[in-house]
């Protein structure tokens, strides 16, 4: 129980830290990193929630959700990076 609380709690703290960084820092790249840290926090919480006690198979549904979430986060990050690079190019030219 303690380990589960520490793991999930760490996820919640990561989420809040990412949210703070997302709101406070202006550069797009930092906002993107902050968003990814928030996402990492949510994955932490989901994995912690899947725990059902020692020697019991963990709940596979949150695990599958995390797997799906990672792929979506990666694709969104890649698209955002290219959009940011394009924005920078336009600003440099204009």
């Amino acid at each position, binding site marked *: 129980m303690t380990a589960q609380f520490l793991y999930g709690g760490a996820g919640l703290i990561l989420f809040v830290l990412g949210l703070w960084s997302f709101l406070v820092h202006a550069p797009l790249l930092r906002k993107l990193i902050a968003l990814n840290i928030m996402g990492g926090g949510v994955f932490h919480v989901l994995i912690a929630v899947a725990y059902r006690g020692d020697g019991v198979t963990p709940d596979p549904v949150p*695990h599958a959700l995390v797997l799906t979430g990672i792929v979506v986060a990666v694709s969104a990050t*890649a698209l955002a990076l290219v959009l940011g690079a394009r924005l920078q190019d336009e600003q440099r030219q204009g």
Partner: protein
Amino acid sequence: MTEPADWARSDRARERARDLSLLLAVLLALLGVVLLAVYFLALNGGAAPRLAELALARVPQSGVGNPVTAVLVNYRAYDTLVELAVLLAAVLGIWSQRPAPPGFQRSSAVLAGMVSWVVPLLIVTSGYMLWVGGYAPGGAFQAGALLGAAGVIVRLAGDPTAGLPGEAVQRWLLVLGVLMFALVGLALMLLGAGFLTYPPKLAKWLILLIESAATIAIGTALAAAYVGGRPSAKGQGPSAGEASAAPSSSSLGPRP
């Protein structure tokens, strides 16, 4: 405007920004405490009903032994289908933004030699991951991530295409995951089962088919996303038109 006024204004703006970030920090710390408290209460509130029992009880009928794979490709197959579509949409968005930027300089002999060992190993490991996903941790996403990593390494070592084939072939590889998923679903519908409702006898092979297609599509999409732009016709280099797997390693072998 005089200079002192400018100074005062920027000072005031800076102070305001600092106050704002301090206020945000306090508010978010409070949010963190509330979240932790709720989480603690939820953990101590006793076991709530879960999907786990239902999911684990039906694993023998799902065609795979690994419950996570069963959830991903069988019970919640729609999730995975749409997720592959998200990945495809991201690559289409990236391609619409700009042509692929030039890659890195051709690597030295030591790095090229290492890459020509690592990339084939990654491809073999990816195939293992795909197969083992049927009954143990693994599956299409892990296998696709390994393929994507192979592409990243190939591009870092100086191949601007990341070992991917030309644009026409790449398009087919990218849609392969969604296409196979949808075709299997529609074929099952025609046979009288529901969309993506696998009959238990065929489930294993249908899932393997879908996962193989998904692995190739995910690997291609991740490598294409890392290239970061639409492949240009002239930037194709020597590996244009080759398949992504084996030739990418052979094209990186020791060069004269």
